[in-house]
Every structure is written in C-alpha cells, then in structure tokens.
C-alpha cells in the first residue's frame, strides 16, 4: 500500500486568504493512504521544495499530492522536486486549489474550503493509482525552420545561423524584408529603414547556414519537437535563378503594367517584377495572373475560338542570359527540422470599412503605409510627397489615429502600438520635406511608452509644429480640391473642421492573411483576431503552447521594430535550447494496449490522428493493436474509442479518472 504525502500551499495569501488551510490539512489526514500532511508558505520556493524533499525521505513517502496553483504553472517544477528525493516524477498529482478555487471563490470562504478539500481528495484518489513512468531518449534534427522573412524572422534566422545551426527561412513573397522594407525612416532615431534592413537581408542571402526559400509557403507540418516534417510549396518564378544576373531588362521592357502591391497601388509594376530594387533575392518573378504569354497559353489550352491574344514573350527574347524558363513548375519540398519559429507578421486594417472616411472613394485619403512609400526616396514618387489625385504638394495634412484600433465597432478593441509614434514621425518627415506643411494629428490618447518615444512626440509638436487635437473624426468629405475633415476637439468640447489637402489614416495592425490557417496546420493556438498565443503572456512570451514551436514579432501582437528584433533573438535562443540538446526525452504519458483484452477491432487505429497504432500478431496467432510510443501524443482518443477495455492512457488512465469521480461527494 502506497504511503501518500499531502502538501498544502498557502501561496502567501493567494490561497490561505480564502481557503482555510488548517481544515484542508485536517481533512487530508483522514483520507485513505495518506500518511503525512504538511503545509508550505510557498511550495515552489527553494524552502518549500526542500521541505517536500525532506518529508519524502523522512516519511518514506511513495506518492505525493501538492495542493497549490495550476499544474500548468508548476507541475514540471514539482516533478523535478520529487525526482530529487528519489521518487519517480510521475508519482505526483497537483490539486489546483488556486486558479480553480481560491481565486474564483474568494467571495465564499466556506465553500472554497469545502471545494479545496474535495479537490485534494480527488488528487489523492488519482495519485494512489499512478504508476512510475519512464521517459525515453529520442533523436532530433538539428535544423530550424523560420516562417516569415520580415525583420523578426530575419533576426531569428541570423541568430540561429550564427550559432552554427542550419536554418531554412520560408517567405511567401518574392523577397524578404517584410513591412519594414516599405518604411521610409524609423522612429525614434529617424534612421533610414532600408539602410539598416538591407545589410541584414543580404547577410541572410549569403549566410552559409541559411537556405532561403522565397515565393514559398509551408503547406503542412507533421511530427513533434525535434522531429518535425514540413512540406514546403516552392512556387514557380518562371525564371532560372542560376542564370539570372538581376540586370532588370525584363521588368523594364515588360509591356504589361499593373498597380504595385509594394507601393500599395501608388505606382505601377510589370508582370515580371522584383517588388523593389534592393529585393533579396534579386530574382524577378513572373506574376502568372497578369503575364500575357501565360494568358495566351491558357487561351490556347481552353481551345476557344476567336482572335488569339498576343504571345508577347518580350522578356524571354530580351533576357541576355536566357533565364526565362516557361517550363518551371511549382515544387513541393519535404524538409526535416527540430524547431520552428513563426514570424508571419502583420497587415494593416482595411479602412474602406469606415464609411465616414469615404470608404476608399477619395484618392487623397491615404494610409500611413502609403505615406511611407510617398516619403521614401526609392518610392513611386522618388520621395516627393504629392497628392495621388492631381500630383500637387499638400500643405495641410490631417492624421486620423486609431483607424481599426481601439474601436469595438470594428471588432478591434486593442491598440496597434505603433501608430501614435509613426504619425509623429511622419509629421516630422513631412516638415523636413516641405517646411510649409502643417500637420494636424487627431488622437484619442498618445501612446509613447518606449525608450526615447515621449521625447520624440515632443519633437513632432515643438520642432515640426504638428498640432495635436484630442478627439475622433466624425466625417470626411470632398469639397472641390479640398477634403473637409469634421471632428471634435474633446478637450475644448467643441467641433472642429479642417480643409485638408491630404488625409492620412493610421490604419491598425492585424495578423497577416492566412495566419489562422498556418496556426492550425502547426497546431498552435491563436486568439480571436488571429494573433498567435504565447505559452505564457509574461513568462514565456516567445513560445507557443506546442513544444518546439516559437513565436516572434507582430505575429504575436502589434509591436515596433526594436520589440520585433528582441523577440526574434529571444525566439532564436529558445529554439537553440532545443537544437543544442544531445537528445530529447519522450513524454511517457502515452497509450498502452492490454494484449489479453484487445480483440483486434482496430477502432483505436481509426481514431488515432498520428498513425501511432500498429498491428502485431501474437504467439497464438491473434492480430492485436500495439502503440508506437514515439508517435503517440497521449490524447487518449483510442481509449474512448476502444470497445473492450483494452486501451489505456498512462497518467490519465481510466482507473485514475474513475477514481477522481468516485472521490466526489463522499
């Protein structure tokens, strides 16, 4: 018969303030098999852990129940504690009397105490049926995958590559760089974005440890920490990268022009294109939806009557090294990696949902990111800030903050974190471009919490003479050449009306398109907006809940460049902590078949999503199920699918769960 020790944690006053510890201890004394009960001010502290270890040795405890905070917090900690005292780490059960009891029932101390006693009783009943479990060593692939090549992903990839580990960086656009490549200068130091970004992009391309796959997407991910198997779709550029010299003749001569995504429609690009001159890799791609020759081929393939469209093929004829390759097709690459960093970044809110701002009807109502392109010397206007409608220089510019941020109506309660700062930056830059510009910034609150940020806002107000008006905009409409902006100055409590030449909407930050689908294929959680969810919002900010998958940058939440870079490095360190281990240990809480009870119906095999059930012929010729422990993830679906009672799950066995139920209300 097992000797069970029960340790009740006060957690300072977090538990003891609501739950009567003495009563819980007294009740525990009377529970079956309990031979020792003690309390701890803080069980997780070194003193608390030592007390537990000493009690295990002195009292010859064989199983331990710790009534404390959620097992999600400290199960791993306490498993180590009991192991240090020589006990199998799986002979431990946590009774969650904090998150599930004291914190939620602080208004009813008697009921909370009663519940805590029952939770301990359930844990005692369960732990009595625990068995010693043993981990196994498993090998791992010492290679990382980074998804998304914005500044966050670039930083993560470089840090891991510099630590000596091979990295695959997958970016779905034809170039890396992400949104930062579109910015002109960056707050709060006003260094030019491409001047600090381009060297990093080039370093990625030239790094011997980095395999860069652009114009590529992750299709599926299987496996587990240390042993992921990833399918990557490499889209066809129709350009042979080994021949292309990046001379640029193709895109200069291509006759088909369409609005450039990189410039948010403010200028054209060709059907064969690199998004911007410093793109990495600097290999053009043919946009299949717009290429004339592709359209011609499709027309012929359809076998339609009528006049054939032109064949074009100008790029092919003019390309000096003959790099155009019409035969090139999409390819699926299969790679094995040990850790994954997700850095899929953001896009900006679609402001056409705001009817009061013209719903996209007015050409001179632009977004913050469009203004970045107008300010940029390598942008569509070569750094001349002009109105999209008539090319004149705007003198009165109105900024509207929180467009798709802090607005419940749009389902966006959160703050986008960078807009206050980039509006101030843009006001400063506009003044530098043209001293006659007067900026008005409509704000709700000014959020400038970063290092040097508040000073930067002052600079916009004092040096660039930007006028800050607190209040929301109710309406924008066109009146002749002017845009009339109507709003409220909530500090003075009166309406304001400004006749503007240009209106800039600070559109909020939302997760990149496809982020949810990617999260699903990676099996990681995302929130209602599609931002990736951290394993712990404070203590594990760059880890997902799935082991071996890490997060960085605006894929988690709106963030500025310094924050993204810090997270990229942090995620790299976390991934390196996996990759640098000689081997990994398997979770022993897996399914197990009772060969005497298995009838060989294989309902378990059909329920298993991980192909973890194999068949095996026994000595008496019966075919039965057997669990492949390295593939089993311990979900227990096979247990509930089993028609006999042959299948069980270690650590969450049927006997243990029934024991918990049996302990209730007795």
């Amino acid at each position: 018969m097992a000797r069970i020790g029960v340790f009740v944690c006060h957690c300072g006053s977090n538990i003891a303030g609501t739950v009567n510890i003495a009563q819980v201890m007294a009740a525990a004394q009377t529970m079956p098999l309990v031979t020792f009960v003690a309390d701890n001010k803080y069980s997780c502290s070194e003193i608390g852990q030592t007390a537990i270890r000493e009690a295990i040795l002195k009292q010859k405890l064989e199983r331990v129940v710790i009534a404390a905070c959620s097992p999600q917090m400290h199960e791993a900690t306490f498993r180590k504690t009991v192991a240090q005292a020589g006990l199998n780490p799986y002979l431990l059960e946590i009774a969650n009397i904090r998150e599930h009891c004291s914190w939620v029932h602080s208004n009813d101390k008697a009921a909370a105490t009663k519940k805590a006693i029952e939770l301990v009783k359930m844990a005692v009943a369960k732990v009595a049926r625990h068995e010693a479990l043993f981990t196994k060593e498993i090998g791992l692939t010492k290679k990382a995958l980074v998804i998304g090549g914005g500044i966050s992903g670039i930083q993560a990839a470089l840090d891991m590559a510099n630590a000596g580990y091979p990295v695959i960086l997958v970016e779905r656009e034809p170039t890396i760089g992400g949104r930062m490549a579109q910015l002109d200068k960056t707050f709060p130091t006003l260094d030019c974005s491409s001047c600090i970004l381009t060297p990093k992009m080039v370093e990625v391309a030239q790094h011997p440890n980095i395999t860069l796959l652009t114009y590529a997407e992750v299709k599926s991910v299987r496996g587990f920490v240390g042993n992921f198997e990833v399918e990557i779709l490499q889209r066809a550029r129709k350009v042979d990268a080994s021949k292309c010299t990046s001379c640029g003749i193709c895109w200069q001569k291509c006759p088909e022009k369409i609005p450039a995504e990189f410039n948010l429609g403010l200028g054209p690009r060709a059907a064969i294109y690199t998004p911007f001159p410093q793109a990495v890799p600097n290999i053009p791609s043919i946009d299949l939806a717009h290429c004339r020759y592709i359209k011609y081929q499709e027309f012929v393939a359809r076998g339609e009557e009528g006049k054939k469209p032109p064949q074009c093929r100008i790029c092919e004829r003019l390309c000096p090294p003959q790099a155009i390759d019409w035969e090139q097709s999409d390819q699926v690459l299969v790679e094995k990696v040990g850790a994954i960093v997700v850095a899929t970044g953001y896009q900006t809110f679609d402001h056409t949902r705001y009817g009061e701002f013209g719903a996209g009807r007015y050409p001179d109502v632009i977004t913050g990111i469009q203004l970045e392109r107008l300010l940029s010397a390598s942008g569509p206007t070569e750094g001349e800030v002009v109105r999209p409608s008539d090319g004149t220089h705007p003198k009165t510019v109105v900024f509207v903050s929180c467009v798709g941020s802090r607005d419940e109506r749009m389902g966006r309660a959160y703050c986008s974190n960078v807009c206050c700062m980039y509006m101030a930056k843009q006001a400063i830059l506009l003044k530098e471009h043209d001293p006659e510009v007067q900026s008005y910034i409509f704000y709700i609150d000014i959020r400038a919490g970063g290092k040097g940020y508040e000073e930067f806002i002052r600079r916009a107000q004092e040096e660039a003479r930007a006028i800050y008006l607190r209040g929301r905009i109710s309406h924008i409409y066109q009146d002749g050449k002017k845009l009339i902006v109507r709003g409220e100055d909530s500090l003075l409590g009166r309406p304001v009306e400004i006749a503007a030449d240009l209106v800039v909407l600070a559109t909020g930050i939302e997760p990149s398109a496809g982020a949810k689908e990617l999260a699903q294929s990676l099996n990681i959680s995302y929130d209602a907006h599609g931002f990736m969810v951290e394993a712990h919002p404070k203590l594990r900010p760059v880890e997902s809940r799935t082991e071996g998958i890490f997060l960085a940058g605006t894929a988690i939440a709106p963030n500025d460049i310094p924050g993204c870079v810090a997270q990229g490095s942090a995620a790299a360190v976390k991934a390196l902590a996996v990759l640098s281990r000689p081997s990994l240990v398997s979770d022993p809480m897996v399914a197990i078949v009772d060969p005497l009870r298995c009838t060989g119906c294989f309902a378990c095999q059909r329920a298993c999503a991980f192909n973890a059930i194999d068949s095996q012929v026994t000595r008496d010729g019966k075919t039965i199920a057997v669990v492949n422990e390295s593939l089993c993830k311990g979900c227990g679906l096979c247990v509930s699918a089993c028609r006999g009672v042959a299948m069980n799950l270690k650590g969450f066995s049927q006997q243990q769960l029934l024991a918990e139920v049996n302990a209730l209300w007795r």
Partner: protein
Amino acid sequence: MALDYQPKIVGFLCNWCSYAGADMAGTSRLTYPPNIRIIRVPCSGRVDATLVTKCFQQGADAVLVAGCHPGECHYSEGNYHARRRFTVLRELLSFLGIEKDRLRLEWVSAAEGKKFSQLVSEFSAEIAHLGPRKDNGKAAGGSL
C-alpha cells in the same frame, strides 16, 4: 425545491484549452459558483461514456465537457470525436431517465476565462432551475 439547492457539476476540461481557460478565469479573479469539480483530461475526446455515466451514478446533477474550439484541438480532431460522442451520450442519458440537458459540451479556449466563468454560472443556474434529478440519482445504477 430548496432555495439553497446547489447542483453538483463535474467538468471534464481538456488540458490545452479549457483547463487553461479555467485557469485564466482564476488569474483574472472572475468568480463563479463553487459547485463544479474540474477533472483534467488530455483532450475532450478522451471523455467516454463510462466516465460520464459514472458521474451520474455518483450523484452528479450535471456534467460539462469542454474542449478547444473546432479546428483548434491540440490533437487536431479530438473535439470532433467528442462532439459526435456527445450526441449519442445525450440519447443514452435520456434512455436512462436523465434529462439530456444535464450533459453539456462547450468550446472554451485558453484565453476565454470570462467565457468559462460565465458558462459555469449559467449552466449552474440552468441546472438549479431544472432541480434535483427526477430519478433521485438512481438511474445509471446509482445508489444515492
């Protein structure tokens, strides 16, 4: 029905979403009635007929099974298994003379502490309204 009648509820919560959601309710100091007993399971799909009927045998007034939202199960499809089994289990309960509504399946994510606390409060109120079990806890082989 006594005014202070407190229904007894068992909650099977999946480790990855709902259990963490219940933790989140705690971390956010939201309150809900103290009459639910939470049992941690790896996945909502782990909960089978035996466990649910055992709860009713044991005198539970209601059972809640909560898992990750569709498409978010940590093991990809466990919650779909749970959903299919749930439909069958409700029929089974009604065959045993226990109102179907005493078994509930819900999706609660790790971030939905508020949803969890509201869910328990609501469910508890609904069951209190339904009153004690008409079979006096005898169905499902109970001995109470």
